[in-house]
């Protein structure tokens, strides 16, 4: 019941949004819709885990062995909650952004992308998952191509082609597994039951055919080239969706549909993927240090952070898996905060170039304080949520028995934390301190709506940082469950 509502509310309100014919009305409408989704999501959170309201399973395509099956377990609860929290925040934070042309379409498409994301996170049927996986992409394609920066059409198309190739390959993999299930079913249980039955030889290629789709979405080096361009060119509200939520689709896909289904393949290729993650982290961090554009800097920092999460998944430890799940949530919140600050700066000064900014702290002290908190969370200082997540991730990687290079991985990945401190603090120094110039003189402090959003984000950051137990309790069971499935020898 609840998962169905989470998908249907944004879907229906999104479709209705096309007929608003007024940008302002559409804006209020979409905020209302996203708040309603949030309310439903919180309702789901308050229910007991055994409640029947948390699952739904209706006949969809009986001849294909596919059902409209959705459910909330620890993993999908935390990601759907993240989606539900992010959208109202995005709408409020970008309340004043103007969209040219038929602006109501912008809000309608945003809601549709929310529906797609919810579907991806909630589906417990492989075909349904694939359905939503592609569906989440289409609205984003239109959003970026219509309202993005100068090079938007080419850049967005590159993004589209990348992900489309990945998802089609994934479709082959899913169909292959489906044909080998004894009951010809797309259900998650049937897929998990296959983990010991698929011959190791087939798992070797199945792993890649599925993983490429997820790796492109995350993105993992060397498939990341679409990301900085797309983040830079997309309208800020869409960039927020892309980086806070869509990136999680890739990690989620690995945890839910790859590692438990082809454990032998995951085991065998774990080191290869981990090496890719490590290279990507170092590379992205080094590139981030040299970036002058705020959006590109955050884009590269995102590659580094996601790489760490992916590394921890392949470490196959209980503590690491817990870390991934909590960090999925944290990273979404933190990067959303970063984007909001960037959006504020760009709107007031008209530039994103770090070299043209300076002295903002004098003009906008409120903004500076909030940014510093978000930035510290981003580099995982204690008392922030980032610390909890990264600590678990690192200890997970360090204690990993899945790889013999665990120490090397931990040390090199640890280096990137230092690098991340370098570029983040450097960015803060150059943007907020120093002397003001002609551009930054005009800046005023943030308005109420922005204050609310950033305050909410800071509250979440500190709360999870100080008292992560509720989140950990939520994901513990699922993490153990997935790990149990990943251990193919049992």
């Amino acid at each position, binding site marked *: 019941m609840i998962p169905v509502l989470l998908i249907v509310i944004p879907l229906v309100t999104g479709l209705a949004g096309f007929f608003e014919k007024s940008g302002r009305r559409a804006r209020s409408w979409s905020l209302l819709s996203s708040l309603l989704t949030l309310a439903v999501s919180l309702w789901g959170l308050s229910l007991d885990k055994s409640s029947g309201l948390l699952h739904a399973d209706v006949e969809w*395509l*009986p*001849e294909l062995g596919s059902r409209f099956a959705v459910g909330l377990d620890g993993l999908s609860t935390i990601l759907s909650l993240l989606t539900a929290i992010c959208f109202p925040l995005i709408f409020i934070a970008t309340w004043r952004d103007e969209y040219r*042309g038929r602006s109501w379409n912008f809000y309608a498409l945003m809601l549709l992308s929310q529906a797609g994301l919810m579907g991806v996170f909630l589906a417990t049927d492989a075909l349904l998952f*694939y*359905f939503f996986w*592609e*569906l989440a992409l*289409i609205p984003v394609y*239109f959003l970026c*191509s*219509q309202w993005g920066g100068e090079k*938007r*059409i080419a850049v967005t*198309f590159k993004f*589209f*082609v990348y992900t*489309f*190739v990945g998802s*089609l*390959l994934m*479709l*082959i993999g899913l*169909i*292959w597994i*489906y*044909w080998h299930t004894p009951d010809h079913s797309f259900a998650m249980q049937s897929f998990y039951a296959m983990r010991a039955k698929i011959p190791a030889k087939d798992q070797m290629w199945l792993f890649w*055919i599925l993983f490429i789709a997820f790796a492109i979405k995350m993105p993992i080096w060397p498939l990341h080239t679409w990301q900085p361009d797309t983040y830079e060119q997309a309208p800020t509200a869409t960039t927020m969706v892309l980086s806070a939520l869509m990136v999680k689709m890739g990690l989620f896909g690995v945890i839910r549909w790859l590692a438990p289904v082809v454990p032998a393949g995951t085991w065998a290729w774990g080191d290869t993927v981990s090496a890719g993650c490590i290279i990507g982290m170092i590379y992205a961090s080094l590139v981030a240090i040299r970036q002058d554009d705020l959006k590109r800097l955050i884009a590269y920092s995102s590659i580094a952070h996601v790489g760490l999460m992916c590394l921890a998944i392949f470490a196959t430890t209980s503590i690491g898996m817990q870390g991934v799940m909590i960090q999925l949530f944290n990273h979404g919140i933190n990067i959303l905060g970063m984007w909001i600050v960037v959006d504020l700066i760009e709107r007031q000064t008209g530039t994103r170039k770090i070299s043209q900014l300076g002295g903002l702290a004098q003009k906008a002290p409120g903004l500076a304080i909030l940014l510093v908190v978000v930035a510290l969370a981003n580099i995982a200082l204690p008392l922030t949520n980032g610390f909890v997540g990264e600590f678990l991730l690192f200890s997970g990687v360090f204690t990993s028995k899945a790889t013999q290079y665990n120490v090397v991985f931990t040390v090199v990945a640890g280096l990137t934390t230092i690098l991340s401190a370098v570029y983040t603090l450097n960015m803060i120094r150059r943007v907020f301190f120093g002397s003001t110039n002609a551009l930054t003189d005009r800046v005023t402090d943030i308005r109420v709506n922005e204050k609310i959003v950033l305050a909410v984000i800071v509250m979440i950051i500190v709360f999870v940082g100080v008292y992560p137990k509720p989140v950990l309790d939520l994901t513990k069971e699922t993490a153990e469950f997935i790990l149990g499935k990943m251990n193919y020898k049992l």
Partner: protein
Amino acid sequence: MMFSGIVTQSKTVIRNVAVLGLALLLIGNYADMTGHHLLVIEVHKMLFFDSFGLLGNSIAFASTLLLVLLSGRDMEKIGHNLAEYYALIFFVLCGVSLVTTFNSLLMLFLGIEILSIPLYILTGSDKKNLKSNEAALKYFLMGAFSTGLMLLGIAFLYGASATGTFIIDDLWTAKPAVSPLLMSGLLLLLVSIAFKVSAAPFHFWTPDVYDGAPTVFTSFMATIVKVSIFIGFVRLFDEGFGAGAAQWQIFVAIIAAATLFIGNITAVFQQSVKRMLAYSSIAQAGFMLLALLALTRVAKEGIILYAAAYSLATIGIFAILIRMKDYTFEGFNGLAKQQPLLAATCTIFLLSLAGIPLTGGFFAKYYMLAAVVSTGKFMWLVVFAVLCAAVSAYYYFRVIQAMYFKEGDAATETAPSAGFKGLLVLLAALVLVLGVFPQALLNQLYAFIYTW
């Protein structure tokens, strides 16, 4: 069995008569599927009316009906012989129903011929246009050549069969070893039909003919004619040669791969949307060939679904294309601002052709891929097909980009009427229904006796 050449000379009612005739055909066909035979004719095993063939017929008739409703008025612009055009279309439909339900090679030949000859005329119907004339001549010469090959193939098969039979069920039975005569007959037949469905490397006529023919008839050829020949194609190879699939599958696989590759890669470089659609129809044929390769139950369901999804989407795009002044990609620039409804429906059709979920095209492609995967062979072809599908997104999305994201004044020749728009919405809705509940169509196969 249920076809009629409409020979009405009164021009004012021609269109309505055609619509009525098509509707009657559709109803008659449906009645047959549900087991209410209006008319029983002894066909001496020459034809065989199973639900597969009848469903193919329904798709052909329904698509033609939609085509006539959408673009009937545009036919009047081509020339003065409106009644003849409709009569020829009905002759083609007669050939179509023979091709989808044949049980004897003779009937197949007859059907293909009845279907081809009116098409040669229709291609050249724009008499004052040089391109149209050239296309007709080219089509005729190439078509005649392939017909010759087909006849030769049939003769070989007749000779190779133990008892001298044209009935397809008996062609392969009681054959301990494959004789070279049988195999060469089979290959000749494969080549000639590959020519008819414009599969590579026998596709060279397609772009010129599709480009040269009046757009209404291009739409007709690229959809109804092509998919019904495909249904006949699957029927022939399944019933006739299904038992010896291992012997000829590799040829089909090569043809499919070549078709996918050439169709998709060439479509990328086109500047005219009409020509792009011609190449895209070649590429789509490559996907449909996957059904021929697999020949499982899934494949047969899939080809029906593919036929429906592909026909609906292509007819819709062509109907919009006919209304455009400029057939190049630039001609579509900014259509979304001028005609939001046309642009939105066109987007749905294009997404369907590209195979994006929620549209019929996704499940069509899904079935094709699933069919081949289920056989466990030719995985390389599946991966190749998928990569080609990704290439196809490039040229379909170019149209979407032109419509939505580029500035321009895409002009339609006349303002589209409310009825035209309504039909387009209906068509788009059908595409979406197929995309969410493909079973709505496929259940027809299960509901009636599954005769295969």
